[in-house]
């Protein structure tokens, strides 16, 4: 029986699939419907994974392995079918099986939903980390939210973004297991009753709370090789079932349903970034809900094999992915002090030793703050605890820096203003034994700027761990041709040790390998060209240079700089100032937050520029501009392997790390970028001759801001290139049928409202693009550089990042 259902052979898998066709889907085993095949295969794989979850758990349990819990409001896991097949070592078996039935694997893969449980890099990083932890045989688990609606689906209407709900759960999700037996109670709202305990000591009591149920949904996470299977636990909110019945019994049907709906609302939708303004109560509830469910679950697991908390931080590490789960500090304290009656100091020591915080942004508007008033209403006991933490913390600061009241004001967890606010980043820093930035540059900026005071207090607490990506998804799965070529050339060790790609370096000078590499890139570009045609009905030439800017739409990421360069290129050719020597296809994709007007307008601008350029017969297809709607993991897997040029052009000092840059590099695209985020380290790894770096450095930007030295009008007056582009935005070149549509952009930039320094970097960007064009024409040299990019991308594996987390944070004793 076991060999039938859990084996990895072709016949075992076939029997499993047939079993699930019949017994899970009520379909005839002869069904060749792609959807049936996808679901029955997914169930078959889940059988194998759940069996191994139990084995893995047993191993961890017996050895009392330290467990790492990764708390994140977002897990952008992507599709799981191919990833699971690869990691279980069953991909080829499955492919064979489909070939026997003359079925295309792509058709089956396309049946799977691509869950949008994240906005971008932060959520995808969390998913890559889970893959790496399982592959490295680390007892690492994710805790997140089971959003009913993921990030919105993006549609385009006349160049404008339209947001559609992503009801990913409307269809059967074969991967998850609902664990109602492990649901938990989450108290929320209420008030504090100031009372005395039996000994006459002050005893605050949290009363009048409401109850929300946390219902876990587990998704298996299989490591490469299939030996270790961890899980991602996503919590959905529900009302207390019994409570509903009580109200039903009273005959108040509507009240019961209303309460059910109100409880479930908490996990109804993922908030798009840039729309989370403080004051959004539902978002705060989500953050608290995740923290309350996961900390309770973590403690429960620990107490299954321990009698007290003496070894908690030896056996448990909790990583807070950004400040979103930073209420974990207060919740763990509350649990230890209130529910388990630990003395404050002991509980505080455990909390600090257990928790660690990853910062993901230096943009001040993205650093979370919640109003005291709101916290008092939603989590009154936690606010009390935060005040107590602050009181003790400021006492420590006062002792070390007597009389420095300005320092106290700066580091306080509470921002004293008319509307008092809790600084969640400060709470996370104070409550953690370790704080990390996500690239070397970002960490330095944190230490010198955002967290300078904290760094002075506790320099040993700050470390850098540059982000990484899993090569299992971003090369093995996304670019099977290249993965196969690499495997044939240097073997498959790179799949679990990306540093092995260095062995490819000699191949960068071998004509045969270069030719094979070029053919693969060409094939990937053909595939993308097909997708582009089928999606937006624009024909693009696979022989053109594919110049790609895909990521969330945000001013700091500077889609505008790219489109300015496209406009300049177009105008030069159009006016006969330049003969096109390299055909170029510019590909954009990315979602703009609803309500973020500038970002939404950027999408419209890209479309309008594309419309003019793509229809201009005089260009003879020298330039094409396309915007692919609904950027998501599965689309990224198609776009990235087809890129020649990777655009990573954020204003220096704004992008914490970036991980798209790493994915492109791994797939043999050359990077054009500023010295921002992990670009700095990509430069170090790949060498300056194999990357195109331009623009202001972070400290130069900081100096210009400090000295108020940026005057857009001056650039306009001095540089014709700037005038050409800015005037084109002003004079309706790209909006003949909608006059005046882009005039705002001219004024936006010229009237000193350009905080992301497009004009100072514009000319250097044009110059580097000229250089890129020249170099691209030397196909052999370009291919060599592309191969070297692949060969030198080893550092950017999430396996490396996770190993560093283990060494520097999770196994560190403060």
């Amino acid at each position, binding site marked *: 029986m076991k060999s039938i259902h859990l084996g990895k052979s072709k016949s075992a898998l076939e029997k499993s699939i047939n079993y699930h066709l019949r017994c899970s889907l009520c379909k005839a085993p002869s069904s060749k419907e792609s959807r049936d095949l996808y679901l029955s295969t997914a169930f078959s794989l889940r059988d194998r994974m759940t069996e191994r979850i139990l084995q893995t758990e047993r191993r961890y349990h017996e050895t009392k392995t330290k467990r790492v819990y990764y708390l994140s409001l977002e897990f952008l896991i992507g599709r799981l079918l191919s990833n699971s097949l690869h990691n279980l070592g069953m991909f080829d078996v499955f492919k064979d099986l489909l070939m026997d039935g003359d079925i295309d694997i792509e058709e089956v893969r396309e049946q799977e939903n691509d869950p949008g449980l994240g906005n971008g890099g932060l959520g995808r990083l969390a998913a890559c980390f889970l893959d790496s932890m399982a592959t490295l045989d680390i007892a690492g688990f994710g805790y997140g939210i089971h959003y009913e609606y993921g990030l919105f689906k993006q549609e385009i209407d006349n160049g404008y973004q339209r947001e559609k709900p992503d009801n990913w759960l409307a269809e059967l999700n074969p991967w998850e297991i609902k664990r109602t037996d492990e649901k938990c*109670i989450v*108290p929320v709202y*209420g008030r504090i*009753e100031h*009372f*005395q*305990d*039996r000994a006459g000591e002050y*005893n*605050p*009591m*949290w*009363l*009048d*709370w*409401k*109850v929300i149920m946390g219902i876990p949904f587990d998704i298996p996470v299989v490591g490469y090789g299939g030996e270790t299977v961890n899980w991602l636990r996503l919590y959905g909110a529900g009302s207390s079932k*019994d*409570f509903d019945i*009580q*109200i039903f019994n*009273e005959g108040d049907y509507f009240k019961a349903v209303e309460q059910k709906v109100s409880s479930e609302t908490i996990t109804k939708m993922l908030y798009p970034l840039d729309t989370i303004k403080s004051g959004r109560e539902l978002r705060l509830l989500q953050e608290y809900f995740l923290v309350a469910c996961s900390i309770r679950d973590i403690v429960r697991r620990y107490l299954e094999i321990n009698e007290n908390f003496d070894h908690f931080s030896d056996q448990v590490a909790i990583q807070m992915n950004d400040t979103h789960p930073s209420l974990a500090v207060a919740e763990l304290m509350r649990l230890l002090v*209130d*529910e*388990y*009656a630990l003395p404050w100091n002991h509980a505080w020591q455990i909390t600090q030793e257990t928790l660690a915080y990853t910062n993901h942004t230096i943009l001040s508007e993205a650093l979370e703050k919640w109003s005291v008033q709101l916290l008092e209403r939603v989590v009154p006991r936690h606010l009390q605890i935060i005040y107590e933490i602050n009181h003790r913390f400021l006492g420590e600061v006062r002792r070390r820096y007597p009389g420095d009241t300005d320092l106290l004001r700066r580091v306080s967890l509470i921002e004293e203003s008319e509307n008092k606010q809790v600084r969640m980043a400060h709470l996370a820093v104070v409550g953690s034994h370790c704080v990390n930035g996500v690239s070397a540059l970002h960490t330095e900026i944190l230490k010198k700027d955002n967290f300078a005071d904290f760094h002075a207090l506790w320099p040993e607490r700050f470390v850098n761990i540059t982000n990484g990506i899993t090569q299992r998804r971003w090369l093995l799965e996304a670019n099977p041709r290249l993965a196969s070529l690499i495997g044939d050339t240097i073997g498959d060790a790179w799949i679990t040790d990306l540093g092995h790609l260095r062995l490819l370096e000699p191949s960068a000078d071998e004509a045969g390998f270069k030719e094979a590499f070029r053919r693969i890139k060409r094939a990937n570009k053909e595939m993308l060209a097909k997708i582009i045609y089928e999606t937006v009905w624009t024909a693009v030439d696979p022989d053109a240079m594919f110049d790609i800017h895909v990521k969330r739409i945000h001013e700091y990421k500077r889609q505008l700089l790219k489109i300015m360069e496209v406009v300049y290129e177009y105008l030069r050719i159009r006016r006969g100032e330049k003969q096109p020597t390299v055909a170029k296809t510019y590909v954009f994709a990315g979602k703009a937050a609803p309500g973020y007007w500038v970002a939404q307008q950027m999408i419209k601008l890209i479309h309008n520029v594309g419309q003019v350029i793509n229809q201009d017969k005089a260009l003879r297809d020298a330039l094409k501009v396309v915007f692919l709607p609904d950027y998501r993991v599965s689309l990224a897997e198609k776009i990235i392997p087809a890129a020649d040029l990777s655009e990573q052009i954020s204003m220096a000092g704004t992008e914490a790390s970036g991980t798209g840059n790493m994915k492109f590099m791994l797939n043999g695209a050359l990077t054009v970028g500023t010295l921002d985020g992990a670009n700095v380290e990509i430069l170090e790894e790949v060498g300056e001759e194999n990357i195109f770096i331009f623009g202001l450095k972070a400290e130069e930007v900081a100096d210009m801001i400090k000295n108020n030295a940026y005057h857009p009008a001056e650039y306009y007056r001095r540089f014709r290139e700037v005038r050409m582009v800015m005037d084109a935005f002003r004079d309706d070149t790209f909006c003949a049928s909608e006059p005046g549509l882009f005039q705002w952009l001219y004024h936006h930039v010229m009237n000193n409202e350009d905080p992301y320094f497009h004009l100072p970097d514009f000319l250097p960007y044009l110059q580097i693009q000229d250089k890129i064009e020249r170099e691209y024409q030397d196909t052999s040299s370009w291919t060599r550089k592309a191969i070297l990019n692949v060969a030198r991308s080893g550092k950017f594996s999430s396996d490396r990042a996770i190993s560093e987390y283990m060494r520097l944070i999770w196994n560190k004793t403060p």
Partner: protein
Amino acid sequence: MQLQQRHTGSVLVVKPLEKRIDASTAMDLKQKMNEWIDAGNRRIVLNLSQVDFIDSSGLGAIISGLKKIGNDGDLVICMVKETVMSLFRLTRMDRVFDIFTSEEAALAALSQKG
């Protein structure tokens, strides 16, 4: 609200027979407590052996009983199931009440107090 009550000496022992004490029954419990105390009962044992869940309004009713009885009496609790005990801990009510594992232990403790 269904409950059993009996006197053992001067101690009133009360056992709610509901599985849940929540918004629908908490007011009833609160009112009954007031009546017992107003009737001169100064030592009360609340036996929660039948109760699986108490929501915050139920906990509030018990607290109001304690407040009403004040310093010249005792309200103790016994036979609390783990699910209910976790809610006592959550609110820190476990530190306010004397909680006993059996009715006999509760009665013995109250008799010692004279």
